[in-house]
């Protein structure tokens, strides 16, 4: 096994035991990037020299017996919305030409302090305003979409071109690409991971979180990211805890909510079957399945758009007036149309959001987690714009991918996506676990318990 193939936890163990040096690991991942990048186009920029320098420092620290923890010497890709001092944050947009970040984002500083090594900046759908990431190809089939908006991060992790990565999630942008590429994604509770220094799409809905190969790896990253920072007005001070799940978890008595409505409607049959099999596996592990009704579903898209559309337009106010032609067409039209939404609609969305949070809290008193599909269908071929469901309903691909994700953005509850198989075309399928605010430990425990019952997943092949 080559070092780039190691999970984060396995690589950390090797580094801690001095059987692997950070230099060897970084070199291996950089070689892998050279091999796969022509096929996947996951990266905006690869910072090879800087990464090798940092790896030598990390190696020196390890030799001196100074070990920073499980991220020591581990290569990470950061979505190119996340500021790193001295490096351009392009947001995969021509409007950001010449940009250079003056300081680290909170999450970049946290990873740096934990010993992680930045290997490069990964592609996003322009300014995170879309579900495709058209620059990047799916790790498993290069003719299919990467998903978005954190497409580069998910594809890099799935291909061995990063040991883990960070993404952002405003309406599924961590969970959608993680699912479409067969890796794990976590949208933490709103307020748990500071967003200072991360380019915003929608302040009300944005989250930053990890994309990794396993649930265990995801937990290790979250432990380094969670914390209070008053420079993010949504940041919440919660007691620092280790998120790593028990290696031999017991699900006896865990109440798993299975939605009767919404999450299994207009879902591909293969996706629904795979997720129901995974839920049955949770039951076999001792969990108790309880039917739940998802509240206020008629208003989910309305609240999501009512918050996101005017906030995104507000963020881009200046450049939309000075260099509108530099935006991609799909993003420009949404930013322009957002100027026409009234304050009344925005305020209704903000108020309805609170109602929805309260209704979800009632459901989450009855169960510990809700288990559901992460997305309604696996990765579609590039260029496909709509999906037609068996009842004749036609839905845009973007609306379909957002549909099962946005409730967690609106309510702020944590949501973990975990691979649960492939469809007949070999494309990954994912289950989503949702929980109470700040109950990430429970989600990670359930996700890890499921993952342990499955064979280890392989990296996407180079083709």
């Amino acid at each position, binding site marked *: 096994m080559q070092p780039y193939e190691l999970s984060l936890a396995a690589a950390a163990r090797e580094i801690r035991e001095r059987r692997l040096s950070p230099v060897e690991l970084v070199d291996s991942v950089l070689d892998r990037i050279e091999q796969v990048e022509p096929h996947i186009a996951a990266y905006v920029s690869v910072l090879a020299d800087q990464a090798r320098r940092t790896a030598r420092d990390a190696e020196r620290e390890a030799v001196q017996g100074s070990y920073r923890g499980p991220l020591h010497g581990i290569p990470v890709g950061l979505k190119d919305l996340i500021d790193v001092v001295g490096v351009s944050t392009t947001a995969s947009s021509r409007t950001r030409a010449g940009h250079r970040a003056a300081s680290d984002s*909170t999450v970049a*500083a*946290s990873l740096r*302090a934990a010993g992680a090594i930045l290997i490069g900046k990964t592609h996003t759908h322009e300014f995170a305003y879309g579900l495709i990431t058209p620059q990047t190809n799916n790790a498993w089939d290069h003719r299919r979409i990467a998903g978005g908006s954190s497409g580069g991060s998910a594809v890099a992790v799935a291909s061995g071109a990063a040991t883990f990565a960070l993404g952002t999630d405003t309406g599924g942008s961590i969970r959608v690409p993680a699912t479409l590429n067969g890796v794990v994604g976590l949208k933490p509770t709103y307020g748990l991971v*500071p967003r200072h220094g991360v380019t915003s799409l929608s*302040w*009300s809905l944005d989250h930053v979180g990890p994309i990794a190969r396993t649930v265990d790896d995801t937990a290790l990253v979250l432990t380094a990211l969670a*914390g*209070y*920072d*008053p*420079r993010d*007005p*949504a940041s919440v001070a919660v007691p620092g805890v280790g998120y790593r799940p028990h290696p031999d978890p017991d699900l006896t008595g865990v109440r798993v909510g299975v939605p009767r409505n919404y999450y299994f409607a207009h879902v591909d049959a293969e996706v629904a079957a795979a997720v129901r099999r995974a839920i049955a596996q949770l039951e076999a592990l001792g969990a108790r399945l309880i039917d739940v009704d998802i509240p206020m579903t*008629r*208003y989910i*898209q*309305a*609240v999501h*758009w*009512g918050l996101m*559309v005017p906030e995104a337009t507000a963020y881009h106010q200046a450049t*939309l*007036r000075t260099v509108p032609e530099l935006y991609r067409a799909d993003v420009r*039209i*949404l930013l*322009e*149309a*957002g*100027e*026409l*939404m009234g304050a009344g*609609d925005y*305020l*209704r*969305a*903000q*108020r*309805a*959001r*609170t*109602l929805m*949070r309260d209704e979800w809290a009632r459901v989450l008193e009855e169960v510990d987690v809700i288990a559901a599909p992460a997305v309604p269908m696996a990765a579609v071929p590039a260029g496909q714009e709509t999906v037609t469901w068996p009842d004749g309903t036609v839905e845009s691909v973007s609306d379909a991918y957002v549909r099962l994700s946005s409730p967690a953005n609106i309510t702020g509850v944590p949501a973990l996506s975990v691979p649960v198989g492939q469809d007949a075309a070999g494309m990954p399928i994912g289950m989503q676990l949702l929980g109470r605010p700040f109950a990430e430990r429970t989600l990670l425990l359930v996700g890890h318990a499921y993952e342990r019952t499955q064979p280890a997943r392989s990296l996407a092949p180079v083709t």
Partner: protein
Amino acid sequence: MSSAELTPSEAARWAARAGLPLPDDRHAAVAATADHIHSVVAVLRELNLRDTPPAGAFRAEKEKHDAAV
């Protein structure tokens, strides 16, 4: 077209009032997109929001920049 839908020239005028002059060739597309967005968010008018305040992110005290990361 319902009375709530925007004509291309109305979309241009609304955008101009928001400080965003639109080139002529964008009026129709912006009107159509704005109408679609409107059709999605308008359902919120059905809700009885009672005394629920908007979810906001404002604090009276300015943040101190000495937070540990």
